[in-house]
């Protein structure tokens, strides 16, 4: 008899998946000189073990973050390591884990996957049970709104019928006493349905009140905060200084070919992007910690990632209270970063993705003429076929607002890539446009998780097959020369 105990997803389910194994074997063969391939060269910065170093930016995209892990798994397996890391939202989570787990020269994907296996994704939706149920049904059942509308209409119709029944039966029971009992029942049922409707309306009002009190966030995000904090602690990162140290420490590096910029200024770092609503700015954590505290270690590094992934409405905003606004160092920091002379006493953060979901621009360095290492990016393309339609007259109201919002939020990063087109060549795109996926679907089946991982793997393999370091390097050098003219 088969066991009823659910089988827990394991790291092996991801990395030993036949598609993953096949893709990786094919890729290794492509770059295996023994099989007639060219060795993989993606960077001029190497460590003693021959790992090649790149900068990596990871895009935000809710649960699509699993695809990012598939992508970085392949990069790691191909001997690529990450010097500087940046990410927004889900990208910030993978960025944080890659930063804190073991050392820069080690592979980290197995540990990241273990964290995914251990996590019950639905627990991240830690809001009111009614909101959890609504979100779950709304995301997993396509016709949920129509069904809910029909049920509501049914209740209202029943209520109208019962009221009409009360009036009719009261009149009839005067003449036909046999109907007396039925009239009483009809009255009690009417009262009962009024109660149900009343309780339903009060409950909805209460939920909206809760939403208002929680700063317009359905889920507190506490489960996520505790989860990421625990993972950071397990990897000996409890303070901002420890995070900075972990991100900066590199093994001794060397250049494959001489470069006039040398290696002196090359060091690792990490950046999480969040949007600050009080002063309406893009905040780069931990670099901008000095805006909020004179002692940066009084801030929690887990909070940066929590701030970066605060999807508006879905999660409560992340707050930093009691900013010492009168301290001259705090004032100086606000003046320096944003030209603001009166800092706010509280900062309120939502998802960095509303301003910069793909912050590749932070790796732009105008001081380097010939790049020593590329800036890789992982783009998550979840635009549905309907989103790609160019017919400007066939959109629904939600489609119209969706496009408006996407135009605003994506243009910041798109503008950089349009003006610095060469950076686009370091970007691999994971195709998640299938209707099967939804970036807010925290109720993913194990199969969906593995499928997303496989999509990330395939995108990374395709990217590496097409990436040409020499062309990239030459084009970026040309760009720098043109800009200096």
């Amino acid at each position, binding site marked *: 008899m088969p066991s009823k105990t659910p089988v827990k997803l394991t790291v092996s389910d991801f990395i030993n998946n036949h598609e993953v194994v096949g893709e990786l074997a094919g890729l290794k063969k492509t770059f295996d000189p023994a099989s007639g391939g060219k060795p993989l060269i993606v960077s001029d910065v190497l460590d003693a073990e021959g790992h090649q170093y790149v900068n990596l930016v990871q895009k935000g995209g809710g649960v699509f973050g699993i695809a990012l892990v598939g992508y970085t798994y392949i990069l790691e397996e191909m001997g690529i390591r990450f010097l500087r890391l940046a990410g927004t939202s889900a990208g910030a989570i993978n960025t944080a884990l890659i930063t804190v787990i073991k050392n820069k020269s080690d592979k980290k994907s197995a540990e990241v996957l273990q964290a995914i296996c251990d996590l019950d994704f639905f627990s991240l939706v830690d809001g009111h049970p009614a909101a959890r149920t609504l979100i779950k049904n709304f995301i997993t059942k396509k016709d949920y709104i129509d069904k809910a509308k029909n049920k509501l209409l049914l209740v209202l119709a029943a209520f109208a019928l019962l009221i009409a029944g009360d009036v009719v039966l009261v009149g009839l029971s*005067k003449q036909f006493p046999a109907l007396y009992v039925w*009239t*009483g029942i009809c*009255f*009690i049922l009417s009262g*009962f349905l009024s109660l149900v409707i009343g309780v339903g309306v009060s409950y909805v009002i209460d939920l909206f009140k809760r939403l208002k009190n929680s700063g317009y966030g359905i889920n507190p995000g506490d489960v996520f905060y505790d989860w990421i904090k625990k993972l950071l602690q397990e990897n000996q990162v409890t303070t901002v200084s420890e995070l900075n140290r972990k991100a900066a420490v590199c093994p001794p590096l060397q250049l494959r070919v001489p470069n006039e910029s040398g290696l002196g200024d090359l060091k690792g770092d990490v950046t999480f992007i969040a949007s600050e609503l009080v002063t309406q700015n893009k905040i780069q954590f931990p670099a901008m910690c000095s805006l909020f505290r004179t002692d940066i270690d009084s801030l929690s590094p887990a909070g940066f990632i929590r701030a970066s992934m605060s999807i508006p409405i879905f999660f409560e905003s992340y707050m930093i209270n009691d900013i010492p606004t009168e301290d001259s160092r705090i004032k100086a920091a606000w003046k320096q970063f944003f030209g603001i002379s009166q800092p706010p006493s509280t900062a309120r953060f939502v998802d960095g993705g509303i301003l910069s979901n793909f912050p590749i621009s932070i790796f732009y360095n105008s001081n380097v003429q010939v790049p020593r290492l590329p800036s890789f990016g992982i783009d998550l393309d979840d635009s549905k076929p309907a989103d790609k339609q160019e017919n400007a007259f066939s959109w629904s109201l939600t489609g119209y607002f969706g496009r408006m919002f996407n135009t605003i939020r994506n243009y910041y990063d798109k503008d950089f890539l349009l003006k610095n087109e060469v950076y686009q060549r370091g970007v691999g795109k994971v195709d998640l446009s299938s209707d099967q996926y939804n970036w807010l679907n925290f109720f993913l089946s194990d199969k969906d998780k593995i499928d997303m991982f496989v999509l990330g793997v395939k995108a990374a393999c395709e990217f590496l097959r097409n990436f040409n370091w020499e062309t990239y390097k030459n084009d970026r050098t040309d760009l720098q020369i043109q800009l200096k003219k």
Partner: protein
Amino acid sequence: MGLIISNAWCWLCFSVALLLVTAFIMLRQAKQFYLFDVVVRKFSIIDLQFPASCKEIPELIKGIYALPAPQQLRTLSALRGQLWVDFLFMPALYGSIFLLCIQVANKMTPAGEIFFECLAWLQLIAWLFDAMENSYLLGKIKPDVTPSTKEVHRAYQQMVFSKWILLLTGIVCSFSALLFFWVSGKYEVHSLYYLLVLVGEVLLFGIAMVIINRRKSAEDAAPLA
């Protein structure tokens, strides 16, 4: 019991009077219900009755202890006070529903009589649940409050839900039946006097609430000395 049932309307007038007096005190106390959760904000006793998770009650109580000292004392005293006054409110509330159900049962067909008598006696269970709920909450009001286990939290939730279902069913069914007797003219004329007394009590309660609220608004609007 025969005495109570034979004078049900009279007893109802007394219990509704007690219900309105205790409700008045409790509503006044509820005006002091504040907590600190990022900012100072109001909460209601309903937030304590329907927590979304086992962490919510401890977080709410911690929020009260996070208030500045004078407001913290006012809120704690008002909250504890309301829970204690609730022990007086309970016999009035469940007693009133009990009496209403008994009154309706007397005028019903045999099946209806059994249904409404059951509903009346079920109010005693609702009362017991309410008293247990208040004791649980009074035990939780302390600075080092910890979340209950999932089992205890689930039991608490089921107790609160059961209480509300029983009392709302009692109110709605008895009021619906009374409304039916009213529109079909099947009532005794002497009960109208009691009805007038009840309406008078509710009116007095309403007037007292309006006066108090106006005075409070005037105090809030007055410039600080």
